[in-house]
């Protein structure tokens, strides 16, 4: 366990080193958020929905703020797979899956927190109906934070499955793009899941992608009542456990037939 913890800590420190690169990314993401909010406001002006616009804008800002949680992958691991340096990792006295799980978790956690803090501050300063609203209640906020951590565990296990496929095919840009698209669409990044057709809601909110950010956001805005929180946590836990099991299986099989690239 200690080995994984120190892998996590090392990665945490490394991620905090590149603060300069964050600024440009944050401004860009804020801009995207403003455009989306403006668009949804225009759509709402034509045909108001049962869900208030404040909820939609809150949804958009939280999605934009934690954007990095979804699209951050371990480029070092990708390089290692391509160059064959992965052979060194096989010699380490730690379980490879767990080692990389700890690393990607640190990367996603710090990467998104560093971006989320300034963005949420900005969004909080925007006028009502443009920015982010306060959480539905204090308990709702606490539960949302807990389920955000659950979402982090879930997205890391998804990421490791994508990596598992990369190991298999070396150049899995096609596969990676497909999996990422699924993630962006069904996590509510391209379009809030709450704006998907009502008849789809039952299915899409139970997919693993919805557990990453959609579930915490719905707790935050109060669309999922506090009493429903245990159900949310169970869904998150079941998916995470299942995905980790699947990932472990995939990595183990890969290790058996791994061909170390030479040269």
């Amino acid at each position, binding site marked *: 366990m200690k080995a994984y913890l120190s892998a996590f800590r090392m990665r945490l420190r490394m991620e905090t080193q590149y603060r300069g690169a964050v600024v*440009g*990314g944050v401004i860009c993401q804020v801009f995207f958020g403003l455009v989306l909010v403006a*668009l949804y406001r*225009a*759509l709402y002006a*034509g045909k108001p929905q049962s869900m208030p616009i404040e909820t939609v804008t809150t949804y958009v800002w939280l999605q934009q703020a934690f954007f990095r949680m979804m699209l951050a992958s371990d480029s070092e691991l990708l390089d290692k797979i391509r160059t064959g340096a992965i052979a060194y990792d096989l010699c380490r006295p730690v379980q490879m899956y767990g080692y990389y799980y700890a690393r990607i978790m640190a990367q996603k956690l710090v990467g998104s927190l560093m971006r989320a803090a300034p963005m949420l501050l900005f969004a909080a300063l925007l006028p009502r109906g443009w920015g982010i609203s306060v959480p539905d209640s204090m308990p709702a906020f606490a539960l949302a934070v807990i389920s955000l951590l659950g979402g982090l565990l879930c997205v890391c296990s998804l990421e490791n499955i994508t990596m598992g496929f990369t190991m298999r095919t070396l150049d899995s840009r096609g596969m990676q793009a*497909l999996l990422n698209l699924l993630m962006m669409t069904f996590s509510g990044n391209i379009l809030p899941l709450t704006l998907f057709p009502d008849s789809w809601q039952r299915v899409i909110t139970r997919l693993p992608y919805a557990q990453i950010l959609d579930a915490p956001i719905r707790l935050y805005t109060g669309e999922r009542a506090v009493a429903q929180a245990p159900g949310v946590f169970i869904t998150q836990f079941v998916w995470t456990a299942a995905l980790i099991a699947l990932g472990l299986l995939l990595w183990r099989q890969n290790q058996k037939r791994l061909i170390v690239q030479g040269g």
Partner: protein
Amino acid sequence: MDTLKLYVKSMGMLLKSQLQYPASFCLQTLAQIVMEAGELMAVLLLIDRFDSLNQWSGGDLLFFFGLMSVTFYLTECFGRGITGNFGNFVRTGQLDTFLLRPRGVLTQVLCSAMDPRRFGCIAVGVAALILGCRQSQVQWTAWKALAFAESVFLGVWLILGLFLIEAVFCIHSVKSVELVNAITYGGRSACEYPIDVYPRPLRILFTVVAPFALTLHVPAAYILDKPMYGWPAWTAFATPLAGAALFAVMYTVFQYAMRFYRSTGS
């Protein structure tokens, strides 16, 4: 003319080289199709929920979306040297070799890369255009076809011009500047929808600074018979020239910036 021939020839060669790995090429093109189809799905779902956006019907929105994706991905396909690789040329010092050859730097950059996988995205854009025309029952005339062709053609130059901003920053500071993405990729996302739905600051940004509205939206509105801001028909042919103007300005700036280019030496 000679330059054009050179460009066409390099494009042919690049295409041939990309097709050497047919399986990988097909899979990646498929991924591009799915990716753009995902964006299209978002538009369709919004139309399903909201029916219309101000005076624009669902079909109109599809038309705007299609026009933007065709234009943007044509640029990414045939202008890959500027939109994708320029930063690397500066970082690796490859740009130095371009300076030695008896051709313009920009010509060589453009001739150096092509991304045929983008045909997937373009195909989705065309599908959206066809669907949009059907639903909005567009009556095509020779004038409208001309406006459409002009819009796409000048739109490509406009987007190239915007990516040149990033190139100029890159010459200056070696690092590519993420901030510029706000008007290139941000412009693409925002201007998939007609400009008049946005509040004034965004409208000014995408009309004056990055004139997507003038180059793409004014002609599109003319084709859909719903003139933008009630402007007369001739504006649909005049305003797209803003795209060419922006490119001309950025071209001059680029040439000026190249005078201060200092190789990374690697």
